[in-house]
């Protein structure tokens, strides 16, 4: 039983990272209608930024907000520079651009940082607590707390502020939004900025555990895709729930299903996507109306 709880805990811990990246994907999807393949790479850049600042002597808790702010600006910049010119483009072209961004950002990070894995020291120390026979590390608890905080703040931003309302409106019905004086383009850009911040938090919180190297977010992105699919693309709540479920499911599957213990563990996210696709394409929280063939 303790083994079960152990896997549960570690699954939840990483699940918050998936939830964060899935939320970022959802926010962008709701606004731009595209799955941003570069979301993980953008988070990698943020994590490396945190590493650069902390290894130059800055304390983590000063570096972290700075990284979030810079990530916000970068997210807005990416939307204005790369996505805005394609306002009237097809879905496929938008997807190609995010693929190009994925390739490009990954190449630049790889070239400037090299492929030797670096360490981002956990700001939460390396304590381990034993609760009912299960090991929980301070990094897991701290990272989860920070990510929960970020997710809550983003939720409040979208549900209770005027700017959040405008962003939601612009995403749902750009035409009507314009008639109400909303600058739809800038709302979309803000959405990308917020997504970049959430991704940055996820990447920075994950780095101490998963290691800091240019391809670090690749597998995380795949699991975040599965989480967003499970939760329902465009649903913020769904993304978070999906992330946690995927985290726990992957963890338990690795433990209890021999076939999926090693390299084949990668099947789990895609099996989830296939099942969602076949039985409930709109995901747990998505709207059926959001799906068009």
């Amino acid at each position, binding site marked *: 039983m303790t083994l079960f709880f152990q896997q549960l805990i570690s699954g939840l811990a990483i699940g918050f990272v998936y939830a964060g990246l899935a939320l970022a994907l959802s926010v962008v999807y709701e606004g731009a209608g595209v799955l941003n393949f570069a979301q993980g790479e953008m988070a990698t850049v943020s994590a490396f930024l945190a590493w650069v600042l902390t290894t130059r002597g800055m304390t983590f808790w000063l570096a972290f907000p700075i990284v979030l702010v810079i990530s916000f600006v970068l997210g807005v910049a990416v939307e204005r520079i790369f996505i805005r010119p394609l306002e009237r483009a097809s879905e496929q072209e938008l997807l190609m651009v995010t693929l190009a961004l994925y390739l490009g950002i990954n190449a630049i990070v790889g070239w400037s940082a090299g492929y030797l894995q670096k360490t981002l020291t956990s700001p939460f120390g390396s304590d381990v607590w034993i609760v009912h026979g299960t090991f929980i590390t301070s990094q897991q608890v701290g990272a989860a707390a920070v990510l929960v905080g970020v997710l809550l703040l983003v939720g409040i931003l979208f549900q209770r502020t005027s700017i959040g*309302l405008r962003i939601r409106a612009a995403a*749902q019905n750009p035409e009507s939004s314009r*008639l*109400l004086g909303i600058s739809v383009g800038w709302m979309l850009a803000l959405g990308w900025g917020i997504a970049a911040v959430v991704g940055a938090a996820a990447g920075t919180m994950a780095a101490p555990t998963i290691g800091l190297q240019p391809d670090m977010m690749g597998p995380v992105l795949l699991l975040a895709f599965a989480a967003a699919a499970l939760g329902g693309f465009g649903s913020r709540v769904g993304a978070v729930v999906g992330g946690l479920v995927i985290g726990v499911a992957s963890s338990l599957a690795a433990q209890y299903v021999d076939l999926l213990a090693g390299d084949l563990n990668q099947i789990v996210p895609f099996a989830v996507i296939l099942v969602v696709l076949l039985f409930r394409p709109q995901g747990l929280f998505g709207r059926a109306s959001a799906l068009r063939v």
Partner: protein
Amino acid sequence: MSALLEGRAVTAFYGDAPALQDVDFEVNEGEILAVLGPNGAGKTTLLRAISRVVRTRGEIRFRGDSIVRLSADQAARRGIGHVPEGRGTFVDLTVEENLRLGSLARRRADRGRALGDLQAVYQLFPILAEFRGRRAGALSGGQQQMLAIARAVLGRPRLLLLDEPSLGLGPVVVNEVFERLSRIREEWSTTLVVAEQNVRQALRLADRALLMRTGRVALVGATDEVAQDPAVQRAYLGD
């Protein structure tokens, strides 16, 4: 009295087809102008030209300033409200959120009045007060129409454009909607331009009417004059 809104030689295209050809129009402050004509005559395009959703050639002046270079959201911020065809409510947001978005569109000077205005709107459309926490998509067509109008009115626009407010609504509801429109002109000091296929209601409500045909202005004048025009009588008011 210089007009609130003036258009000269306004021309608009959809692709290669002209939707408006060389149209002149004027709207005076405080009046209600009805825009009439069959489907495809250009009524919707005319409204979209004014709210800058479509690009046009020619000149359009609002309160003396040219607006042809403005984008739709800029025009909205200048005080041109537009209730589009099909209502355009945010179906996945609540009634309250829809209204709040309307309020957010108002100019800085009017921000202080927002709360009072919301109460006034709830009095004008009690059904919205009742459903305020509900998802807008759950409302009936007539209720969504009222929501769309209320939302636009909350922006305190100087000029309010309405595109076919009676579309898809039963006669009782249409009466209610038009009764509200009359009150809106009084209580909110707004000038109205109403594009309508329901000629009877439109002529009852409006001061002046503009009749369009295939993208051009066929007739314009006070409502009683237009109502007496034989072509109008034949096409719309006869049986």
